[in-house]
């Protein structure tokens, strides 16, 4: 049985800070700016916030953010683990808190100096003795050290099994970039690229080249979740959470589930999809647009299959038919994604999915967006959420 939170929690405020490669401020400053901006967007006051949800990887303690922003009593805080797998995981925490009455207004935030501070591309190392460090120990001595290398290992086999080529990876990177061109907060605002430039970019971990990889960014994003009753009195159109799920699957490792009978697959994302659809009463045909976690271009393809937009091995043809583009079946990553807007660990994706349902995207599709999908990272325990218009 799937727990039902359908329409019991509503996103009422969203905000991104300026995204950059060198914020020049602390991660706490970024978190405070994002939370304050989302409070303002909602038309709430800092003292209305009584709960927080973020990533275990976030360096900002909830009480520090609360003090910085000037919030009052807190009755809930919860963190979600596994890197970008926590993107909708944090939303999941907030929704549960609001649906059960543990808190009334929960701010979901993620703030990082991902370029000027601790960089993801610097890889893992074995300084600390934890189960996590022992896990990375199976890969570090061989040089399999970075997120790109782990995803490359899955992708090489997935391409081998499906016959999907780099044409499809280019289409993901390129369609995303075309959206970023219109987004002033995107790193690649106004900067297009073509196939020649894509092909000429340096190899990072075969077959992933530079433009298959997301950026390392400084910035923060926040979304605020409250009850439907309260949402109806606030200034923005409410965006209800129809379904939200977290999922891990058998033999799950963090980025290195290489020991499954067939490891070119993301069964954890299939569980998240099944549960989100069951919770919401929606089907894949109801989804009008998507923000699909894009730390690397191929993981968008796998997720299109996991969520049932097409069958296994069919995502290449699906995207090459233009599905992700403005007039396509599923306009996707309309903010420019993490490939071309900024890598804020997927929370900028929740901001964009909310804007799509509100009708406020910089690249708002012409068709009515009644339901948008947003997903968390891939290769890890993960999740997703289905957003829709609040009934007034």
């Amino acid at each position, binding site marked *: 049985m799937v727990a039902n939170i359908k329409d019991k929690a509503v996103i009422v405020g969203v905000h991104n800070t300026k995204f950059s490669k060198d914020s020049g401020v602390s991660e706490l400053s970024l978190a405070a700016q994002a939370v304050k901006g989302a409070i303002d967007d909602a038309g709430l006051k800092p003292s209305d916030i009584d709960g927080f949800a973020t990533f275990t990887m976030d360096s900002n303690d909830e009480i520090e953010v609360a003090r910085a922003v000037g919030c009052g009593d807190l009755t809930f805080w919860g963190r979600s683990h596994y890197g970008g797998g926590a993107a909708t995981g944090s939303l999941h925490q907030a929704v549960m808190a609001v649906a059960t009455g543990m808190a009334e207004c929960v701010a979901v935030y993620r703030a990082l100096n991902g370029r000027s501070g601790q960089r993801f*591309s*610097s*890889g893992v*190392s*074995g300084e*600390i*003795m934890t*189960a996590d*460090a*022992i*896990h*990375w*120990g*199976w*890969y*570090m*001595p*061989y*040089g*399999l*050290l*970075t997120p790109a*290398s782990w995803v*490359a*290992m*899955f992708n*090489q*086999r997935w391409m*081998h099994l499906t016959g999907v080529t780099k044409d499809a990876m280019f289409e993901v990177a390129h369609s995303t970039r075309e959206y970023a061109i219109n987004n002033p907060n995107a790193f690649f605002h106004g900067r297009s690229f073509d196939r*020649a*430039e894509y092909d*000429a970019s*340096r*190899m*990072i*971990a*075969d*077959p*992933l080249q530079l433009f298959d990889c997301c950026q390392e960014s400084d910035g923060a994003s926040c979304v605020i979740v409250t009850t439907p009753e309260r949402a109806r009195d606030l200034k923005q159109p409410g965006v209800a959470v129809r379904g939200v799920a977290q999922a891990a699957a058998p033999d799950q490792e963090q980025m*290195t589930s*290489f*020991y499954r009978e067939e*490891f*070119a697959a993301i069964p954890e994302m299939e569980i998240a999809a099944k549960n989100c659809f069951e919770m919401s009463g929606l089907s894949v045909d109801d989804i009008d647009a998507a923000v699909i976690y894009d730390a690397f271009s191929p993981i968008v393809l796998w997720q299109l299959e996991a969520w049932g937009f097409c069958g296994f091995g069919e995502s290449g043809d699906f995207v090459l038919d233009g599905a992700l583009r403005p007039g396509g079946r599923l306009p996707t990553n309309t903010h420019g994604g993490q490939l071309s807007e900024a890598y804020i660990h997927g929370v900028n994706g929740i901001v964009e999915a909310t804007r799509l349902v509100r009708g406020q995207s910089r690249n708002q599709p012409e068709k009515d967006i009644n339901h948008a999908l947003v997903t968390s990272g891939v290769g890890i325990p993960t999740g997703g959420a289905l957003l829709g218009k609040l009934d007034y």
Partner: protein
Amino acid sequence: MGHQEEALHMTPEEQKVFEDKLYAYVGVEVCSRKPAKDAVNETMIRHWTEVMGDTNPAYTDPEWAAQSRRGKTIAPPAMMYVWNQEGYSVASSGRASDPQTEMAEMLNDHGFTGVLGTNVKQEYVKEISPGDTVYVQMVIDNISERKVTARGPGYFFETLATFSDQNGDTIGVQRFRVLKFIPQEQPAASASDDKLQVPTRIASPRGHDNGWWWNAVDEGKVLIQRCKGCQTLRHPPRPMCGECQSMEWDSIESTLDGEIMSFTALRHPKIPGYPADPICAVIKLGEGTNIVSNIVGCDFDDIAIGMKVKGKVEQVDEKTMLPQFYPA
């Protein structure tokens, strides 16, 4: 009495007189803006990129460059300092005297005979292309207070070179930091070798659940954990059997016959202590479990999913024993 003792025995008054003369060089121009002997040219660019192993077509492929946003090739920015080098005349007739050489002579005369370039920092402002001419102007930008370093006591000084083109536009700047020091007697070569830190691969931490596995690797063996209850093999090792929940286990030794399930090479970033572009693979062992390891002994382009491989435990650096797999 040698220079070394002279300097070490400088009285505070003598040191002040010396330092007054030394610090007078701060801000002094080493050379006024002058052009390079040769204009920026494709030949020197090609030589430089070949030596550096830099294959960026933006530097050397006019056809490619014509299609690019720039429309023409550019010189590698890091080549900025190359154009104004004096060349072989320095070897035959020596370096012409300038304020920097005068300052170095003064330091030498006071025992600071050691010289060590410690840092170079370049900043790039404008791209240049074949046909442009690079001009350089240089000043002594700063001199540190007297420092005690591992090499001996000395002073750091930094020159600031500003590079510009024929239009007077700044191309970039370079800061070059040098330590002039009084050489100390070095310990015997063997003793100093012990202190040389050669980077090695990052080792796995060893805990209750995995330490025994790595200890076996140190002895040349790759083991696979086996449940005593239901005989299921499992890797990586875990404290409990996922099939029957038994916590009793032993192990078998793998023959290291395997098949490649997937593979990649870590091209970027380069990591100290690792070979360039290490090839990593998921390998299905003959016993049925998967393991991650390196593929060695063949080119990346010759590797394919499904290829048979054979492993052996090898010493890969000063501190590390690891299973490595070769084409079977």
